[in-house]
């Protein structure tokens, strides 16, 4: 039966791929329409070489960062690979809005020093690509991060950024990049779609979201001499203008000392402002709340590495409606009995749910919108630019016929949807970030690090401030009087890799030990650096090897009790393995840094 159809018409295969072959109901849209709007016959170099880039391999070659580039792991070939199924219909896309962005990007590139900056371009996809093409001319490496496919019935018009990638491919291929070029991550602003919209059966739901691990960590940036983040977006130059899925990530970077500049293209120019991103309520906030409502038995040992099936269907889009003021947020008791329950068997009260009020309101979702509310011929042919900003950020639709409870099993709770592990944050450890304030003025961190380490070590050894001396003496005295320590919390600190261990004494005294990676901010220390502090004094000092204090601490830690219940949350449970990890490094400071076991 295996009839090889490789020689069959590309159009027919493409039609099949796009689900629009045989005439059926509803009337299928010609896939050529996907690339009809703003399609042009010549590429950005005014030639026809774009046809070469209808081959996925060629398009990939044009855009992939060099193999040795540190940004290569963050490049997503997803959208580029899609050219293989639409190649018979695909064409370069360059509308007026896109070309307008070229001008804005050009002005920006010529007026802004990007030598120590990473750029995130978060505009409608084709405009992001235009920025990437312009930035590439000044030596910035565009990193395509659009992570889903176009579809004839797609909620997102991802064929438009794909068309733009084709349009600029010749120019991109003609300007090879240095491996050490700073990056510009190209995002699709409409990726979350119309928040709260529940897809109908005729919609191909190609919305997607980013997690922090889709992008480099603060440490990676700093190791590459990047101190600043430039965020180009259509919403504004004030905190909160970042898209919801970037908020946590940007906040982490900001707390790790990276400076942010938000840029908003305006006509063919741009506005910009320095911004400090901070935590805010987003459509993902509910997830963070939900973590804490898991059972007392919940551990991050139970970490779901691949939770997205449940998350996708029951959490993400579901919560969208509530979080964005859709019907879910307006539901009343009439929606039925509580669909989310906090079983009393866990013995833990539900956490406050912020402005959402009662838990059950949070998890209602809209029934699929009736088909008649959509255009009969789909959304393809006469829409404006892909998911314009007013659609992206507007309020959720309120056209549902009613509400339906979503049954969520409290036991099936899981952490945020990270396929890969991320930093574990503990809010009450953030004061540690003051360390970053010691950084040298203005220059690249890499250059400042040796000086910083020397400064810190020298400070702790011989030129301690009065406050540090006082803290050292106080902790030494307290530990000498302590019979037993209780290990209560282990958590990662968003400074680029440090791990904090928290202990309490019978007197109520709290001791924090911070283990700093051997390779920190691009420099490698010759031995394991450990910092001690009492969070009340908020002064931190280095624990000197072979000191009396070190010996005392080793003795206490060898007999420490482990308390997994009183203070730790799901991410910060102490364990014997992690305690042994710390002890081994206390006893032998030459041990190589390894990840701290859970």
């Amino acid at each position, binding site marked *: *039966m*295996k*009839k090889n*159809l490789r020689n069959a018409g590309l159009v027919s*295969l493409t039609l*099949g*791929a796009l*689900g*629009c072959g045989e005439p*059926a109901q*509803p009337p299928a849209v010609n896939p050529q329409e996907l690339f009809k709007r703003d399609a042009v016959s010549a590429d950005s170099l005014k030639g026809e070489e774009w046809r070469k880039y209808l081959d996925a*391999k060629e398009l*990939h070659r044009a855009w992939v960062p060099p193999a040795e580039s540190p940004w*290569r*792991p*963050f490049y*997503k*070939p*997803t959208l580029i*690979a899609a050219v*293989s*199924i639409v190649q018979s219909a695909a064409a370069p896309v360059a509308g007026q809005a896109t070309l307008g962005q070229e001008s804005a990007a050009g002005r920006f590139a010529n007026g802004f020093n990007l030598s120590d900056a990473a750029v995130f371009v978060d505009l409608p996809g084709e405009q992001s690509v235009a920025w990437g093409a312009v930035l590439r001319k000044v030596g910035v490496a565009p990193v395509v991060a659009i*992570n*889903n*496919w176009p579809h*004839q019935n797609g909620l997102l018009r991802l064929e438009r950024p794909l068309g733009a990638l084709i349009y600029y491919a010749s120019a991109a291929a003609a300007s090879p990049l240095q491996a050490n070029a700073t990056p510009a991550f190209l995002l699709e602003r409409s990726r979350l779609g119309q928040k709260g919209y*529940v*897809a109908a*059966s*005729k919609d*191909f*739901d*190609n*919305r*997607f979201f980013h997690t922090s691990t889709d992008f480099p960590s603060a440490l990676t940036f700093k190791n590459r001499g990047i101190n600043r983040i430039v965020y180009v977006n259509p919403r504004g130059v004030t905190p909160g203008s970042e898209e919801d899925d970037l908020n946590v990530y940007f906040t982490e970077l900001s707390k790790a000392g990276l400076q942010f500049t938000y840029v908003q293209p305006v006509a063919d120019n741009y506005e910009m402002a320095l911004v400090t991103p901070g935590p805010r309520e987003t459509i993902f906030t509910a997830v963070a709340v939900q973590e804490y409502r898991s*059972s007392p*038995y*919940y551990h991050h*040992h*139970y*970490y*779901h590495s*691949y939770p*997205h*099936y*449940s998350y*996708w*269907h*029951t959490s993400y889009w579901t919560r969208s409606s509530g979080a964005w003021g859709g019907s879910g947020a307006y539901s009343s008791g009439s929606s039925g009995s509580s669909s989310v329950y906090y079983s009393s068997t866990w013995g833990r009260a539900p956490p406050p749910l912020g402005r959402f009020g009662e838990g059950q309101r949070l998890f209602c979702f809209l*029934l*699929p919108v009736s088909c008649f509310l959509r255009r009969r011929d789909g959304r393809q042919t006469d829409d404006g630019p892909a998911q314009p900003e007013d659609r992206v950020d507007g309020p959720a639709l309120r056209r549902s016929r009613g509400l339906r409870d979503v049954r969520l099993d409290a*036991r099936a709770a899981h952490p945020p949807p990270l*396929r*890969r*592990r991320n930093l574990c944050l503990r809010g009450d450890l953030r004061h540690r970030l003051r360390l970053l304030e010691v950084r040298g003025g203005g220059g690249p961190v890499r250059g400042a690090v040796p000086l910083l380490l020397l400064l810190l070590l020298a400070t702790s050894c011989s030129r301690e401030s009065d406050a540090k001396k006082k803290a050292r003496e106080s902790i030494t005295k307290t530990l000498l009087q302590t019979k037993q320590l209780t290990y209560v919390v282990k958590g990662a600190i968003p400074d680029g890799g440090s791990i904090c261990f928290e202990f309490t004494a019978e007197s109520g005294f709290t001791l924090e030990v911070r283990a700093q990676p051997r390779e920190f901010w691009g420099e490698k220390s010759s031995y394991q650096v450990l910092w001690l502090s009492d969070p009340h004094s908020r002064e931190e000092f280095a624990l000197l090897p072979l000191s009396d204090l070190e010996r005392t601490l080793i003795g206490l830690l060898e007999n420490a009790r*482990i308390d*997994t*219940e009183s203070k730790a949350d799901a991410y910060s449970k102490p*364990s*014997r393995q992690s305690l042994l990890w710390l002890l081994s490094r206390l006893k032998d400071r030459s041990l190589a840094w390894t990840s701290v076991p859970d």
Partner: protein
Amino acid sequence: MRMAAPEIVDRMSIDYLMWNAYVDGRLSALAEPVAIPRAELDELASLSERFARLLEKTIDLVLADPALLAFYGFKPPLRRMIESERARLPITLARYDAFRTPGGWRFSEFNCDVPGGVHEGAGLSDLIGGERSRFRVVELLTEALCRTSARPSVAVCYASGYAEDLEQCEFLRREWTRVGIRALLCNPENLVWNGRELRCFGEKIDVVYRFFPAEWLQEVANFEDLLSAAKSGALPMINGFTSLIAQSKKTMALWHERLELFDAAERELILGHVPRSESFRTAELDRYRRERERLVVKRQFGRIGEEVLMGSHCGDEEWEDWLGWPASEPHEWIVQERFDNLPVTVDGETIYGCFGPYVVDGKFAGLYNRFARDGFIAFNALVGAVVGA
């Protein structure tokens, strides 16, 4: 350990749609194939086919005996799914997790619902292993699709917001399209049952290739419609709902607890190649505490290392704490004996492998192999090809 060269990674990205070749910022594909004695690989293939037959028999036994079905403690929606399947569908595509141990091959999981890694297995086998002929999943799966119709229309159904799932689905869709099979990408809510036929984007669907775990289907808006279609016999799927029985880790407990249900050869297979498994019982908590080092506790539908509690990975206090979860819902968990995984050496470094034999329609079809430095296979495992030595 050397990782795959950039040009290989590029080919994996575009030809095999492996868009997540990097995990945690690092390449995850080994540059060289891992050599395993040929005889061991042949034994693995043979054992896999025997297990495929055993799983089919087990499903038949369970469906025929309500008491056995009750043993699984499935929640009502899952039972409804299983009961909706008018004519039982065989497990068409499965991938097992097998480990080399001092006592021979041990099988610790049977992925019979939505096994993944097909495109990665194909890419690694072809580009690194150089033994394309040994990876026959696509070929055999295509034959299975065409069992009842020469040119079926296939709905390739997955969680469409996730590129990592799109990888495998598009890889299969592309391969099927190449041989003239119409295949449409969709998510479960795109499947429309009108009481007579199943449609997707207006087209009649003959077969659904489901890459969406059955236990999550209960959350989709058209769940009742899909059940109705299944009851009408209009939801032929790869794999069917009854595959959930084989997917459940409680099947391994059933095998050990009800050995009398099986013949001598099957008992030999179970006792020789499945770690001793039992249902989690709260009455046995003291024993579980005492035997921490040798026990692993698993949730029946945990996937990719999720919800697997290894006693050897914690201390007594933690173990005590960990056991609280299964103790609160014992019918969802099993207890299994830990086994030692034999290491393999790659580029002078010791790693531990999890070998994933695919079985398509009862036939061994190739391997998808993951490796970890600490022996715990999770989301960040390395992947690699395996060749016979």
